[in-house]
């Protein structure tokens, strides 16, 4: 089905977009100019926390940086001045504990003040901040804390007891666990607010270089362990520029990013980008709820909103009556990230909320939005848009160790970016081989398949590997298969993403049982319970099917592509490497 482009005629809004003329903005753009704008005294040293918090505090600390809405809709505000002081204290507190520059401070916490203070405070101290996803189970957390060799962890007593206490003995590097104090502090933990009270403000921010590591974000691999992508302090240049161009943010905006703080969006646009612009961040501590979200959009007078396809589809499902009860007139721009946004959702926004959703594309590895639909330019529903100023994107083919860009329009290939933008990841922690495999001939290879139309708009086609995109989270099938194989009844497991109307994909497992086991409903529930306990609900399968055999290559590798084809009824493609080709027809 063909969707009509959504045009943006001149004079459509009372405001002028930050990026009004796409071609002109691209032609005039330089990263040096962005550097001068943010750091007039030079960019030899650049610290994210200084630019995001202190710079605005120096210019007048009364302006509000954060408005945190709690479960009962009470709002706690933190001014830029208070944010500077609290993050000063955090930096001083971890220095006193003995977390040296370059060491990792992890967080396992929801969207509460402690998260924002810990993130920016860690960066001020020159340490590296690593947010973890609070819906992970103990095993994924143990693995990630261990890979990061985290020296300190910021969490809550409840999360610590549920997920960390049982695995702490296996984490010798984890010296300090700082707990918020809404409940009694568990044994072996340090009260966070008490040590912040005892710490000092006004110590100088550590002078970090643009390439010094600032953040670690975990991302899933198709095989083996998760990878920790390193983001440097200089990334803030791209996060600032993209907040202005792709999110059209300015200082007077009330900005709501609904992303979980455990993923890259939660830091890049949940903290750094919008604060670097000087906007006010609105934060909801609670999980998704349709009625609650419309109430927040109205009560908080949200002007710019950045959310996910899964959330938008849940809002669509909730119907049009809820938004009609609310005054959403403050909202002037809405954008989406996490997985491709279907055209129905783009158009639903226009018809129901009065403004379309603007899809954006980027990855943990890119550190900032790379491709977007813009406030002042035509939206092609279903397209991820066009590259930002300063970003060169291409579709290419891998040929051996080299690549060949495809110049003709509408051809499928791998989406790639020309190396050299400031937020590009500088490595996977302790994994130079995986890092090297991401590059060829001066291009970063995204692993996403896409095509580009004749006018330069990019269209997502699929993943080039077996990774699963569920509710905006990237899940590696290997991690789920490994957890299933731990169960004594399981002989083999193959895990795929099954298309889902709300979540994009859901995690589905195909399981072969060991002899003597029968695939009963009882066993299915046991396996579900086992994986949910171990991995948490965001990673564990939502569906488990029993089967007598899994399609495998002659070398014994599970062909997840065939499981996917079997699930969706799509053609299986090349099956010549299949161990038993008859299985491909099941």
């Amino acid at each position, binding site marked *: 089905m063909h969707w009509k482009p959504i045009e943006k005629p001149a004079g459509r809004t009372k405001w002028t977009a930050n990026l009004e003329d796409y071609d002109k903005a691209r032609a005039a753009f330089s990263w040096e100019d962005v550097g001068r704008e943010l750091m007039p005294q030079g960019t030899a040293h650049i610290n994210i926390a200084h630019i995001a918090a202190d710079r605005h505090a120096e210019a007048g600390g009364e302006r509000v940086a954060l408005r945190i809405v709690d479960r009962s809709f009470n709002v706690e505000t933190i001014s830029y001045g208070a944010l500077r002081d609290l993050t000063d204290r955090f930096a001083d507190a971890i220095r006193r504990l003995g977390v040296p520059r370059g060491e990792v401070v992890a967080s396992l916490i929801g969207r509460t003040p402690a998260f924002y203070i810990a993130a920016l405070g860690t960066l001020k101290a020159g340490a590296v901040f690593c947010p973890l996803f609070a819906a992970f189970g103990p095993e994924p957390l143990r693995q990630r804390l261990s890979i990061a060799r985290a020296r300190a962890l910021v969490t809550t007593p409840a999360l610590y007891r549920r997920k960390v206490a049982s695995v702490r003995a296996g984490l010798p590097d984890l010296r300090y666990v700082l707990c918020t104090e809404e409940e009694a502090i568990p044994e072996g933990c340090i009260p966070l607010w008490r040590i912040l009270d005892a710490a000092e403000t006004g110590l100088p921010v550590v002078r970090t270089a643009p390439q010094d590591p600032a953040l670690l974000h975990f991302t899933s691999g198709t095989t083996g362990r998760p990878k920790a992508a390193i983001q440097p302090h200089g990334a803030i240049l791209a996060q600032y520029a993209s907040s202005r161009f792709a999110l059209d943010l300015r200082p007077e905006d009330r900005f709501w990013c609904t992303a979980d703080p455990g993923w890259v969006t939660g830091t890049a646009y949940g903290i750094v980008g919008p604060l670097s612009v000087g906007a006010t961040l609105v934060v909801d501590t609670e999980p998704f709820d349709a009625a609650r979200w419309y109430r927040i959009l109205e009560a908080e007078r949200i002007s710019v909103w950045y959310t996910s396809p899964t959330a938008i589809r849940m809002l669509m*499902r909730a119907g049009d009556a809820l938004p009609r009860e609310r005054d959403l007139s403050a909202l002037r721009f809405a954008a989406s990230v996490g997985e491709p946004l279907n055209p129905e959702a783009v158009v639903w926004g226009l018809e129901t909320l009065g403004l379309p959703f603007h899809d954006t594309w980027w990855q943990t590895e890119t550190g900032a939005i790379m491709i977007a639909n813009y406030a002042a330019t035509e939206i092609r529903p279903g397209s991820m848009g066009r590259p930002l100023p300063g970003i060169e994107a291409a579709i290419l083919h891998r040929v051996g160790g080299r690549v060949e860009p495809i110049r003709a329009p509408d051809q499928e290939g791998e989406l790639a970016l020309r190396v050299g933008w400031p937020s590009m990841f500088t490595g996977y922690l302790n994994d130079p081989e995986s890092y090297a495999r991401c590059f060829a001939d001066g291009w970063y290879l995204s692993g996403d398949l896409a095509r580009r139309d004749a006018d330069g708009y990019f269209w997502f086609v699929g993943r080039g590997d077996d990774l699963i995109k569920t509710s905006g989270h990237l899940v590696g099938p290997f991690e789920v298969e490994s957890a299933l194989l731990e169960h004594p009844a399981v002989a083999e497991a193959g895990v795929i993403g099954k298309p889902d109307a709300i979540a994009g994909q859901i995690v589905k497992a195909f399981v072969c049982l060991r002899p003597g086991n029968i695939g009963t409903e009882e066993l299915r*529930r*046991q396996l579900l*319970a086992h994986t*949910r306990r171990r991995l948490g*609900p965001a990673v564990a399968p939502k569906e488990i099917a029993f089967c007598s055999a899994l399609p495998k290559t002659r070398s014994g590798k599970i062909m997840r592509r065939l499981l996917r084809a079997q699930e969706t009824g799509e053609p299986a493609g090349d099956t010549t490497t299949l161990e038993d080709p008859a299985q491909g027809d099941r």
Partner: protein
Amino acid sequence: MNTSNAEQLSQLILDTLIAVAPEVDPGALDPDVAFRDQFEIDSVDFLNFVLRLEKQLDRRIPEADFPRLSSLKGCLAYLGDKKT
């Protein structure tokens, strides 16, 4: 609603919950506390829970009412009160 109806409804809610999140121990569940404060449940799980309740009880539950289903006590009050 009489006692036996309430017990039946409570059992049905717990069965539905366990179908979505089988790791939950119904005996240890505090009826007054929100589900998500007692065990791990994501928004897709919660939606599946409500969809299954709709099917079991053969009634439509509008999204605006979802927050009322966030605990066992809330479910009992809401589902026991509004008869279809």
